[in-house]
Structure formats: structure tokens, C-alpha cells
């Protein structure tokens, strides 16, 4: 696994540092041996003491020398590169039992595969968009110039860009407030508060929406230690249903080349839940069906339907 870590590591200095550690160890054990042996037999007491002190000092000097050597070498060795794509999971490579738990190699393969898939999907979507079935001339046909992208860049967006997009969407809708935080690494977690109706926790991966959880306005969205609770479901059946619909929505609104449009459409769809308790179903005209209000919002028209009434 040294080939992966070798990006910033000086292998020469690394080997020298290891031997410097061994030298340091031996000089320290010499110090303790000297102490253990005590004073050598000499004629006078002073002579014995002087010889012991001189020997002890020599040993301490050699320890000091070896320590300085080690420090110098460790500065040369350098750190493993910080923008390691696997970040903390790269430490899995330190697991010695490779045959029984080949986690690291499997992880690498999975990442390479998914990156390749993303790249191929991007190419395919570019090609397919050229052969559009629509009659109107779309500007997507001009993407031949933009097409040869080396890497799927939308996966590795700078956090500042994500912050900007989110704050722009926050200002778009007055009754919806979006609060962004990054408690777990670089993926953003949004807490969207819609009026006094509901709260939504959105977990993102760069600018793509990964998961959502919808909870009531009066429910607690933080855990006991004050962090955002992204796992526990709502206590109310209404909001459990809306969570399912929100998951369907984030799977429905997909556009890999323009993820900020996707986030905007998702937020527009979410905003239609402002009148969750006030709007009757457009199909049956009633408010309640099995005790639930109309929880489904059509993806195009944003009309309210009961879950069982939707076409």
C-alpha cells in the first residue's frame, strides 16, 4: 500500500528515520544499563564517582544526538497527502490481516468503479441530449464543446460554492429558512424550517442531496449533545409519510450536469408543504383519508393529493 501513500512521502528519509529510531532505542537502553551497573570498581571513591558520571554523561549526549537526528529526519519524511480521496478510510490500509478482511482494496475498487460510472454516465447524457426528441432547439445541443470533461467535477465542489448556492436559495423564499452546518466532514447538513409547519434535515454530498428527514415544528431535531440528529424518525405518521415523499422527490429531481437547479427545484417542491394542513385533496375534496391530510405534492403542478388519491 506504499504506492498510495507515497505521494508526499520521502521513502529514503523514511528508511533513515527507522534506523534512527533503532539507534535512539539502543542509546536509551545503554543509559539504563549504565545506571543498573552502577559504579565500576576503582581505587578511590572520587575516581569511581567521576568515571560513573562521565560514562552517564556520554550516554545522555548520545541519546540527545540520536533524538535530534530523528527529529531532522522526521521533518524530511513529510506527511501523507491531505487531499487523499479516501481521507480517514485510507487508514484501513494499516490493517495487517489482508486475506480475511480485504476491506481497503475492495473500497478502492468500489470508488474507482463509481467514479468511472459517473464519468461514463456524463458522457452518455451529453450524447443523448444531442439526439433530443424535442422539436425546440435546446442549448444542450451545443454541449459538444463542453463535453470532454476530464473528471466529474460536480462531485468535488469547493465548500464555498455550496455555501453560496444554499444562501442564494435561502434568500429566494421568505417563509423558508435554511441553516447550513458541517458537523461531519465536508458534507453539508441543512436544517430547513418551513414557516411553523415542519422542519427538514437534508444531508448532502457536495451539491447532491443524499437523504432527507422531515419532522414536526415542535419536535426536537438535535441529539442530547446538541448535534443535529440525522437518524431518528418523526413521532407523527403525517411526517413519516412526508419523509417518504421527500425521498421520492430527491430521486425524481435529477440533473447531473446542473446540481444547483436540482436543489432549487427540490426546495420549490418542499415549499408547497407550507399549506400541509390547510389544503384539501384536489381529487376527493376532503381533508382526511385514514387520518392523514393530503401529503403528496405533484412534482410538476405542486397540487395536493392524498397518498391514495394520486394518479
Amino acid at each position, binding site marked *: 500500500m506504499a504506492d498510495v501513500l507515497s505521494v508526499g512521502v520521502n521513502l529514503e528519509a523514511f528508511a533513515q528515520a527507522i534506523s534512527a529510531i533503532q539507534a535512539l532505542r539502543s542509546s536509551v537502553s545503554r543509559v539504563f544499563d549504565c545506571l543498573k551497573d552502577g559504579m565500576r570498581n576503582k581505587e578511590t571513591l572520587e575516581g569511581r564517582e567521576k568515571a560513573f558520571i562521565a560514562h552517564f554523561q556520554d550516554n545522555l549526549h548520545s541519546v540527545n544526538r540520536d533524538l535530534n537526528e530523528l527529529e531532522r529526519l522526521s521533518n524530511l519524511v513529510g506527511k501523507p497527502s491531505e487531499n487523499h480521496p479516501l481521507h480517514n478510510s485510507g487508514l484501513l490500509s494499516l490493517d495487517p490481516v489482508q486475506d480475511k478482511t480485504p476491506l481497503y482494496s475492495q473500497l478502492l475498487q468500489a470508488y474507482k468503479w463509481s467514479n468511472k460510472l459517473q464519468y461514463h454516465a456524463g458522457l452518455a447524457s451529453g450524447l443523448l441530449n444531442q439526439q433530443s426528441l424535442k422539436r425546440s432547439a435546446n442549448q444542450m445541443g451545443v454541449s459538444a464543446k463542453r463535453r470532454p470533461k476530464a473528471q466529474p467535477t460536480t462531485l468535488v465542489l469547493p465548500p464555498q460554492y455550496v455555501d453560496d448556492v444554499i444562501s442564494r436559495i435561502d434568500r429566494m423564499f421568505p417563509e423558508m429558512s435554511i441553516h447550513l452546518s458541517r458537523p461531519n466532514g465536508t458534507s453539508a447538513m441543512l436544517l430547513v424550517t418551513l414557516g411553523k409547519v415542519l422542519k427538514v434535515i437534508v444531508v448532502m454530498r457536495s451539491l447532491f442531496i443524499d437523504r432527507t428527514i422531515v419532522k414536526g415544528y415542535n419536535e426536537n431535531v438535535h441529539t442530547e449533545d446538541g448535534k443535529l440528529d440525522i437518524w431518528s424518525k418523526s413521532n407523527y*405518521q403525517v411526517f413519516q409519510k412526508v419523509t417518504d415523499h421527500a425521498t421520492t422527490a430527491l430521486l425524481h429531481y435529477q440533473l447531473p450536469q446542473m446540481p444547483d437547479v436540482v436543489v432549487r427545484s427540490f426546495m420549490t417542491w418542499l415549499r408547497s408543504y407550507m399549506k400541509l394542513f*390547510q389544503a384539501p385533496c384536489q381529487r376527493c375534496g376532503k381533508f382526511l383519508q385514514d387520518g392523514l391530510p393530503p401529503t403528496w405534492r405533484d412534482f410538476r403542478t405542486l397540487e395536493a393529493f392524498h397518498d391514495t388519491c394520486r394518479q
Partner: protein
Amino acid sequence: MGVTCVSQMPVAEGKNVQQTVELLTRKLEMLGAEKQGTFCVDCETYHTAASTLGSQGQAGKLMYVMHNSEYPLSCFALFENGPCLVADTNFDVLMVKLKGFFQSAKASKIETRGTRYQYCDFLVKVGTVTMGPSARGISVEVEYGPCVVASDCWSLLLEFLQSFLGSHTPGAPTVFGNRHDAVYSPADTMVQYMELFNKIRKQQQVIEKRKPNQ
């Protein structure tokens, strides 16, 4: 705390209080509600002692001290059109100490006891209102948990109430009108209960006044 509506169910023709309660609970169970234990709401009346009124001769105000089993660690104290205080249960002990200022009105304790039902996100409580040993009426409380703004979900609540109360569905409670877009709080529920108890007390007084004439 979701939006709550407290109303009175009139006793059915030719039946007594218990039978009407049974009718209601059977309708609820047919709807699909599950029984979830019991509840109790009680109310004691105090009036300001004469010694504190002074020479102005103003009428003494009535204060109600209420408890709700839904909030077992709290005690609610409210004036008729005035503020509602939410305190912990030591407030009862405090009232004993304030005997000089607030005196308990005699035979004033009124309470409602009954069963709780859960249907989807609705919590329905059907209780028998008793003053002393006798049952005086039926209280129905419906709470819709997910919503906290009263004006939002009144139509929804109304539809649900109609499904099992039928023609006895009440109108919108007065507390809903007062607070537009404010978050609903347990104090509003207690105000509704206080109004209900007062109504039942007045009905009782009317019945008792009629009796000597018959």
C-alpha cells in the same frame, strides 16, 4: 403540544351519561382508534378574600386552579379573562399558604375523567364531568399532534370531529380566534376546559333553579 379542541357532547335522548359515553367510545373504536389509558382534568375555584378588597367594593375575582394528567408535573392557575400561569405541583401547597388572600369556594371541585384513544395522529379523550358524586355532562377533547398553529388546521379538525360526533360538532373555540399564527400552548387547552366547566356549572344552576317550581 398540538392544537386541541375541547367541546361538550350533549347527553343523548332517553339515555344517561354513561350510555352516551359508551356510544361514543364504540364509534371511536369502529373508526379504528386504540385505547391508550385514562386521563383526568380537575378544577378548583378560589375567590379573593373579602379582607383584600379594600374600600372600593370591587367584586372579587375568581381564580381557577387546574391539573391535567397529560402534564403531570404542572399546575395551571387562571383568571376568567386574564392570564394563565403554568407552575409546578408545589403551587397547590402555595395556595394553602395563601389562605388569607384566596379562599376556596365551597363545593367547587369539578373534574372530568375518562379514556384516551389514539387514532393516527389524533388523540381523543372522552370524559365524564362530575361535580361531587354525580355526573353532570360529557367532555370531548381532540388533539392533533403535528400542527402547532391553530388557524391552520381547524378545517382538518372539524372534518375529524364530524366523522364521529356527527351533528353535535362544535364551532371553533374562542381561543383559536384570539391567536393568529401564534404557537398553540397547553394553557389554551386549560382555558377551554375552564369555559366548559363554567358552562356545565351554569347549566346545573339553571336546572336547580327550575326544580322548586316543578
